């Protein structure tokens, strides 16, 4: 599978993730978040951006390796199913990935991660944004 559009690679904690560049609408500086009652633990809160409320999903909590890091930036991922902001320790930029694009697991969030792909900075887990947001909408 050829990486036609390229991927936006970002670090979250010690892991590298990538989202397809065409689903990554923007990189933003994270403002202070508003917590939402009854929201799951990986949903850190929401913030208003360009007249839209964006939920902030912490990948470290979602993958079961939570970090107490205060993220400065987030990658806004937009799909027809909705938009989320993924906090990033560091955004590396757009890159063309090579390597495996297979699912990394069969349960939880791992169903929506593919790889391992290779980037200049190392191995990258590619987020399948379409299914990922759907997964988030159905998950408690």
């Amino acid at each position, binding site marked *: 599978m050829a990486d036609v559009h390229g991927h936006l690679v970002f670090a979250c904690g010690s892991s590298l993730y990538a989202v397809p560049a065409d689903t990554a609408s923007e990189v933003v500086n994270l403002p202070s978040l*508003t917590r939402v*009652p*009854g*929201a*799951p633990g990986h949903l850190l809160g*929401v913030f*208003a951006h360009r007249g839209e409320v964006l*939920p902030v999903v912490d990948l470290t909590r979602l993958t079961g390796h939570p970090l107490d890091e205060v993220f400065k930036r987030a990658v806004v991922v937009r799909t027809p199913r909705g938009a989320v902001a993924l906090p990033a320790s560091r955004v590396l930029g757009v890159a063309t990935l090579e390597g495996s694009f297979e699912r990394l697991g069969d349960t939880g969030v791992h169903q929506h991660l593919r790889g391992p792909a290779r980037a200049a900075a190392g191995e990258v887990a590619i987020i399948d944004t379409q299914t990922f*947001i759907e997964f988030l909408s*159905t998950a408690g």
Partner: protein
Amino acid sequence: MTDVQAEVIEGLVLCRVGEDRLAVRAREISSFDVPHAGARYAGEGFSPQARAPAEARLLRHHDTALVVDTVEVHSERLTLLSVPAVLVRAWGGALCGFVEAGGLLWPVISLERFAQGPEVVS
């Protein structure tokens, strides 16, 4: 971006719950009262161990009651922002949307649904 026509809200009660915030449509509240035993504390929506402070307020509507820390009536017209897809099911679907007031973002809840708890889904 959604094409849904943005709803406008007139009359909103802005509530503080610990360090968090909630907003309830004013028309959903019939009276403010002092809290009584058995009434749900809104803080539980953010942290299960949260307890109401001594000087709390009770939002009452018929048989429904919810305890918050402080209340403030906001009478300006505010645009109700839609709930992101990933949060539609939160707290039993009690979340109605968000408003921006005073430079802050407030989650707007349905008092009746919120008071019923997170498990009940309409």
